[in-house]
């Protein structure tokens, strides 16, 4: 106990890489098998980003007792905001 | 003997208005439609009546596609639902008819046939939608097509249409024509108990046991209204007994075969005809809709002239009542099929005939009804 546990269901994961790309603590990486895997579990602060952003319901974070830092709303201004990859206006 | 019968309410109604009386007598509580001549009176009459019917709901949709969609939705929610249209609107509805057949959603669609293709002759009669009623929606699917010839029959056949829809979980198309729809005649207004009324079978098993498209004795699975605790999936994709899409050949075959079988097994119930002096007939007229009325007079006149003529009035067009038509064809020297098209139902008669007897067609497509004398000329 104490630490957050992070689980990826390999059967449901399609390896899109969203969790790996956006996790603020770099907990995930996409492996050679094309699936996400947990590489840095101890860094997890249970911010709540990865679960609702996994399109395949394949990530599970079981919170421990420490390190709870909810992530800010996605719409909060990001000082390190990158310019748009491509400007496409729907 | 019995107590004097209470005087029944009578009304002098259009065929279209009689359809509404029949629908309400059958328990219809939902109408969605889009006005189109010559079916519009059905919609107008529903708009007037449904607000006063318990739980009645009426909605004018933006087009015929939407009307069918709303009717399907209401039926899924447990209502006896109906729409009415005419030629061009009927064409627009075809995709949704196929959806209703595939999802086995009961509904009644009244198509008041007018003349011609496309916009054609909006205020003239025609019978050009007969084959479309059977084959209009793509893909193999069973369907029930009925017709009515006079105003009292509009009541009766609308009730029958609802009963078949509910009993067999199928869309039922009632084909009228402009003459039948726009003729006024006296009817006795239906009262509760006048007609045997069927409602769909609903499941009694616990929800977790329920399979929405399961094989049953009759081939017709029970159908709960949406929101009653049975949660299931409805889809126009070919589906397995649980309702989920499938492409496994054995499941695909099982579904389609059951859908056909649920109708095929009950031909005796579904195929309604009326025999008029066919017992000894050497000339048989086979007719439906307003033309059947002309044929009735023609046959009477032919009998008076010494010709042994008979008439078979088809009230069910599909499944085609072969079991009634075939014996007549085997025993007559001439069969005459008058219709207000270039020969649509006569194809079925010729198919069943298999060369046994002469089949003569009378085809009229000028927006006028086939007259008794026109038929008489062919049979006497």
């Amino acid at each position: 106990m104490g630490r957050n546990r992070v689980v990826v269901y390999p059967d449901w994961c399609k390896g899109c890489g969203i969790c790996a790309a956006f996790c603020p603590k770099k907990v995930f990486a996409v492996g050679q098998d094309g699936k996400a895997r947990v590489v840095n579990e101890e860094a997890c602060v249970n911010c709540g980003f990865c679960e609702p952003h996994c399109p395949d319901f394949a990530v599970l974070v079981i919170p421990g007792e420490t390190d709870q830092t909810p992530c800010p709303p996605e719409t909060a201004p990001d000082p390190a905001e990158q310019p748009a990859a491509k400007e496409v206006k729907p | 003997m019995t107590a004097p019968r209470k005087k029944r309410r009578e009304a002098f109604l259009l065929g279209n208005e009689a359809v509404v009386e029949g629908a309400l007598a059958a328990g219809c509580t939902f109408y969605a439609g889009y006005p189109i001549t010559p079916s519009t009176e059905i919609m107008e009459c529903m708009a007037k009546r449904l607000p006063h019917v318990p739980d009645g709901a009426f909605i004018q949709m933006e087009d015929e596609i939407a009307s069918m969609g709303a009717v399907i939705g209401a039926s899924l929610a447990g209502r006896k639902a109906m729409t009415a249209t005419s030629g061009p609107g009927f064409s627009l509805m075809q995709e949704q008819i196929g959806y209703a057949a595939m999802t086995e959603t009961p509904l009644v669609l009244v198509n008041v046939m007018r003349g011609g293709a496309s916009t054609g002759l909006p205020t003239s009669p025609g019978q050009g939608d007969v084959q479309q009623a059977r084959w209009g929606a793509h893909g193999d699917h069973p369907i029930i097509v009925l017709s009515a010839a006079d105003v009292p029959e509009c009541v009766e056949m609308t009730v029958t249409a609802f009963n078949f829809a509910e009993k067999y979980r199928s869309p039922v198309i009632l084909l009228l024509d402009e003459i039948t729809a726009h003729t006024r005649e006296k009817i006795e207004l239906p009262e509760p108990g006048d007609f045997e009324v069927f409602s769909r079978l609903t499941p009694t098993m616990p929800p977790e046991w329920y399979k929405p498209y399961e094989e049953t004795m009759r081939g017709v699975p029970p159908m709960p209204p949406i929101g009653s605790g049975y949660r299931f999936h409805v889809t126009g994709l070919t589906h397995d007994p649980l309702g989920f899409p499938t492409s496994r050949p054995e499941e695909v075959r099982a579904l389609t075969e059951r859908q056909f079988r649920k109708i095929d097994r009950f031909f005796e119930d579904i195929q309604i005809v009326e025999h008029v002096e066919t017992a000894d007939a050497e000339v048989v007229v086979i007719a439906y809709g307003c033309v059947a009325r002309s044929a009735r007079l023609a046959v009477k006149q032919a009998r008076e002239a010494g010709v042994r003529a008979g008439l078979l009035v088809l009230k069910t067009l599909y499944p085609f009542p072969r079991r009634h038509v075939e014996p007549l064809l085997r025993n007559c020297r001439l069969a005459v099929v008058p219709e207000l098209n270039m020969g649509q139902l006569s194809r079925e008669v010729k198919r069943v005939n298999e060369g046994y007897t002469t089949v003569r067609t009378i085809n009229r497509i000028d927006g006028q009804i086939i007259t008794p004398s026109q038929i008489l000329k062919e049979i006497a």
Partner: protein
Amino acid sequence: MAEITQLIHQYLRHNKKFPLVFCPGCGHGIVLGSLVRSVHALGLPKDDVVIVAGIGCSGRIAAYVDFNTVHTTHGRALTVATGIKMANPKLTVIAVMGDGDAFSIGGNHLIHAARRNIGVTALVLNNFIYGMTGGQCSSTTPEGAYSHTCPQGQLESAFDIVELTRAAGAAGVSRGTVYHVKELDALLAEAISRPGFNLVEALTPCFTQYGRGNGFKSAVEMFKWLKASCLPVERYEKLEDRTGKLPIGTFVRRDVAGLETRWANMRQALAAKKGGAA
């Protein structure tokens, strides 16, 4: 936060094949999650929720969730939803559609559903493309973007969904994205609970059919694009240069009774009049 995934599992139909049929990185699964969370947050029983879906990738969502689900024909979800709502106003009816469904083939139904203000929530998954048929342009494909049916670049302009539905008379119009999930949850919950016709446009990237052909290197990059270009409408309106930016949030909030309610009121008034006269 394990409860998020666990909650979704409570609403999934486990007799369906998983994982979801969608491509890797497709946002549709995220919208599905958002839908489940907002329904759950509102405390609606599964039996009272009806999901009516159209055709296309978005249409497949219906089969996965344990509500009453109806997968209809292409573009007609709103018509069936209208029938269900009129027949049983107690049900919560949510029409899940794609951009092709809602704005192209079903565009007429959309504006009329908004005009008559039927009490249905329209959840439109906008990925700017016909995904399931292999990447043809839709009525939301941005001008200049590429697809199999506009290989030289789209010449037509895209619908402005917000203005379209606002003008048609919707009670509520909002836009969210699958990157801004918490906001999407809130927008959906708000839309479902507001009477009348409410439209929620969820921007959800399609990397396979849209992204690849339009200069995105991965699905992740599309999410980054959403992150970078979408901002709350309040902030968007203060911007001097709005190039490449998109507002999200709620654009229309109207307090108008749904058609089903107005119908019920009319019936009640009729009955009262009749009862009074008798």
